[in-house]
């Protein structure tokens, strides 16, 4: 199913730009960590997970390692600080790469970095799962407006937005199309 | 005190005028208006006139549970419900098993003055089902007791029941049986069937009622006495009574408004308002009870008005008391379920809610007779009903001390507008009238 773009929205990243951004991030990760040894790439559901898989695939390709051994998913639902403000959320799966996260460099992957609250929850979740040697953060889009002292290590695109705007990330694995659009609240139906 | 009831329809027949004077119906039709003189005129256009209703089955709770009801408040409720007489059941505290207690209740009724209160005497001492109470003393007391019942408890010992049936023949009494086999109903909470299986409340099987009724009609036949079956609730019970009557056994039977209108499905709410004994039964049973009432197998509608305090109902089902109030809704329920549906006429209503109950209770003769026809020379006990009025039951507006009506919020057709007790209006325009006001 392909989601129709909302009228009044504009595309800021297309399939090529997304792909290029991930390749660049992959190289930055490898450069900074001197290779893929000891690396774990954890996607935050929903759309962080396919991004993590793609990132791991590029890294594996470059380094000649098994992508499956790198990647995992980290559900942060039970660590969120806003559960009471929303209808009950469905808990997603948490799957770590074989060997867990102890003493590994964990790269958390999410689609959009906004308030920083999801990443805060992710770090708490991670702490309950083990003790990584370092935790880094990769995001496809950083749209600003942080509410916590959190900064991404790897950013696909910095996107200045107003708070009333909405950043809509669509990925083939979930939405049938790769795109990042900025939507006006008024443009929403 | 004179009242001219103008344009009322006796038993739903042709409209006419009724003149009530000095406690008696003194004139009918054109004569009534001619002789009215300074009589207070009650505009009865569109209203049905019934003989004052008589309840054979009321719990007034006094003495003992004045927190749930008193003779005063219960008889106010009765008047509002169109009643001019009620029989007060014996399961008070102390139990009405002596001449002293029945005379006390009689006096409380006279002091209240809203309706005639006829005490029912207990069959056994303390309702314990072991030893006959002093039935003769109660019969000869000022209360002139003719109806004897352990209601609330079943006279389950067949020998005791036989003796009671025999003994009351000496003064033309009747034993009114609460038919409930105790061993089959130990701990029972509701009708045993599909709903009880689902909601996990201990079952009260139909057979526990039917087995006692079957036994008792045979005992009544054997000793040639009168038996009255209280609050018959199952299709099987209707069949047994029908069979007994066909055999000429002197049995009469009662249905309550709730067994004519409500089913065991209501237990799914776990709201103890619907907890009653015998329990609400299935839709098939309700239909059989209605059919039995319509065809005369069931002789009377008795309210089984059973007031309970809030704390006895505002709790979990198993801890709650059995019973529901009924005096103020009985006519409305009978009207809605039986008259509005075309199954009974207003003459039938007069039969099952006035004439027959008075005859069974032996209160239908003498100067203070109840349940008499609306004829010249008869005591002026008259109930006026608006057959078309649609009204919504408001528990908080009831005169009973207790609020445990299962009909709150329900819309009924047919409402009591006025009640006259021996010519004195106790209710006018649906409102109580204190003595000496009108």
């Amino acid at each position, binding site marked *: 199913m392909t989601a129709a773009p909302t009228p009044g929205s504009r595309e800021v990243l297309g399939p090529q730009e997304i792909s290029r951004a991930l390749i660049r991030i992959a190289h930055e990760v490898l450069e900074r960590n001197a290779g893929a040894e000891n690396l774990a790439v954890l996607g935050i559901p929903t759309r962080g997970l396919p991004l993590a898989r793609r990132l791991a695939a590029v890294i594996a390709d470059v380094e000649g390692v098994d992508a499956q051994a790198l990647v995992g998913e980290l559900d942060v639902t*039970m660590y969120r600080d806003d559960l*009471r403000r929303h*209808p*009950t*959320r469905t808990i997603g799966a948490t799957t770590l790469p074989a060997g867990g996260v102890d003493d590994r460099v964990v790269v958390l992957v999410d689609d959009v970095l906004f308030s920083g609250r999801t990443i805060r929850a992710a770090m708490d979740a991670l702490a309950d799962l083990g003790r990584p040697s370092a935790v880094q953060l990769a995001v496809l889009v950083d749209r600003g407006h942080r509410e916590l002292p959190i900064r991404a290590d790897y950013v696909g695109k910095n996107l200045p937005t107003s708070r009333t705007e909405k950043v809509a990330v669509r990925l083939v694995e979930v939405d049938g199309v790769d795109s990042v659009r900025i939507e006006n609240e008024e443009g929403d139906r | 005190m004179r009242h001219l009831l103008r344009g009322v329809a006796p038993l739903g027949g042709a409209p006419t005028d009724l003149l009530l004077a000095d406690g008696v119906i003194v004139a009918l039709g054109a004569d009534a208006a001619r002789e009215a003189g300074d009589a207070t005129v009650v505009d009865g256009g569109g209203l049905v006139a019934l003989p004052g209703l008589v309840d054979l089955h009321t719990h007034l709770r006094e003495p003992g549970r004045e927190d749930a009801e008193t003779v005063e408040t219960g008889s106010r409720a009765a008047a509002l419900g169109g009643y001019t007489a009620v029989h007060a059941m014996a399961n008070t505290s102390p139990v009405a098993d002596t001449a002293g207690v029945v005379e006390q209740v009689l006096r409380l009724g006279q002091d209240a003055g809203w309706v005639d209160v006829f005490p029912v005497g207990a069959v056994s001492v303390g309702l314990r089902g072991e030893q006959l109470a002093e039935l003769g003393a109660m019969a000869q007391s000022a209360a002139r007791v003719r109806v004897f019942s352990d209601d609330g408890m079943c006279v389950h010992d067949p020998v005791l029941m036989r003796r009671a049936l025999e003994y009351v023949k000496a003064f033309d009494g009747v034993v009114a049986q609460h038919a409930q086999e105790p061993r089959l109903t130990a701990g029972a909470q509701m009708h045993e069937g599909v709903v009880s299986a689902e909601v996990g409340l201990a079952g009260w099987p139909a057979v526990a009622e039917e087995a006692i009724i079957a036994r008792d009609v045979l005992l009544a036949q054997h000793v040639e006495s009168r038996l009255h079956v209280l609050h018959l609730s199952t299709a099987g019970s209707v069949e047994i009574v029908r069979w007994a009557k066909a055999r000429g056994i002197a049995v009469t039977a009662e249905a309550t408004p709730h067994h004519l209108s409500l089913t065991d499905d209501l237990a799914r709410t776990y709201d103890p308002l619907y907890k009653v004994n015998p329990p609400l039964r299935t839709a098939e049973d309700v239909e059989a009870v209605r059919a039995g009432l319509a065809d005369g197998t069931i002789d009377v509608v008795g309210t089984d008005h059973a007031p309970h305090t809030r704390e006895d109902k505002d*709790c*979990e089902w198993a801890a709650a008391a059995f019973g529901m109030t009924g005096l103020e809704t009985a006519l409305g329920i009978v009207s809605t379920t039986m008259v509005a549906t075309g199954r009974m006429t207003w003459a039938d209503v007069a039969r099952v809610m006035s004439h027959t109950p008075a005859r069974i209770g032996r209160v239908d003769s003498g100067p203070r007779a109840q349940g008499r026809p609306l004829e010249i020379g008869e005591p002026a006990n008259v109930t006026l009903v608006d057959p078309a009025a649609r009204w919504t039951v408001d528990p908080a507006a009831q005169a009973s001390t207790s609020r445990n009506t299962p009909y709150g919020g329900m819309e009924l057709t047919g409402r009591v507008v006025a009640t006259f007790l021996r010519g004195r209006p106790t209710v006018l325009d649906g409102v109580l009238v204190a003595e000496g006001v009108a």
Partner: protein
Amino acid sequence: MRHLLSVADLDRDAAVLVLDTAAEMAKTQGREIKKLPTLRGRTVVNLFFEDSTRTRISFEAAAKRLSADVINFSAKGSSVSKGESLKDTALTLQAMGADAVVVRHQASGAPHRLANAGWLDAAVLNAGDGTHQHPTQALLDAFTIRRHLRGPDVGDPDGVGADLSGLHVAIVGDVLHSRVARSNVGLLTTLGARVTLVAPPTLVPIGADRWPCEISYHLDEVLDSGPDAVMMLRVQRERMGGPGLAGAATSAGFFPSPLEYTRQYGLDARRLARLPEHAIVMHPGPMNRGLEISADAADSPRAVIVEQVANGVAVRMAVLYLLLAGDREKGTEA
């Protein structure tokens, strides 16, 4: 989900969601750090009018693992046993700001009254009421069945996403007095399983013929039909014949003697051997060894009885999560 009073509150999808959520909860319980911050600041009251240490500690563990504050309120034996006390207790809990009340009560429908009488805003979770319902027991049973019998088919150790279609479960014993049987008949059939109740006729409630299950009086026949799971219910010795309780001369029992019951309806080694290879043996506990189940059967590798207890914590965590984590006015996310 505002309350969990009966398995009838759950349709197929809601039941699968509880089981899937329980699967995630179960995974967290294998970790070194078992405690989650999810219900921090929420207060769960365990209100037990009837003794049940096992159920209470299971709920207590579940609530604590989710970081809720737990208050245990044992009302048994105190003056809190009848009348308006349930209401007063509810008003007390309301005043204390309870977010959820886990209630065990000997009266069927008491949780229903707590939830619906307007005494209390908290979520009410039925932990067993009279002979009515025990929904978390049925959920943990369904979870255990799904894990063992559907997990391999769907390629997930917990069978996440699957229901119980195609499975046949026999429930054996005192159905009449059993809230476990009532809950399981409802839930297992909602999840697509076929259920056969096996009991002497005296222990089958009148009206059960309308339940969505089959009823048999013969255990051996049912075992020969190859059920996938056999659930043995606890039979209380006091239900048998003989002298009645204090004062009563005699009480007609539901079965003639424990020996006869065991002979007709007990699961022993001989009967265990008649079951299909893959079939599992369940019991809600506590067991009467030698009455409804022999030691051979209870301790056999097919018995998943201890696992049921462990799964109980995960299932109760899931239910507490679904009742309490979100905004209760906004329901559950699709």
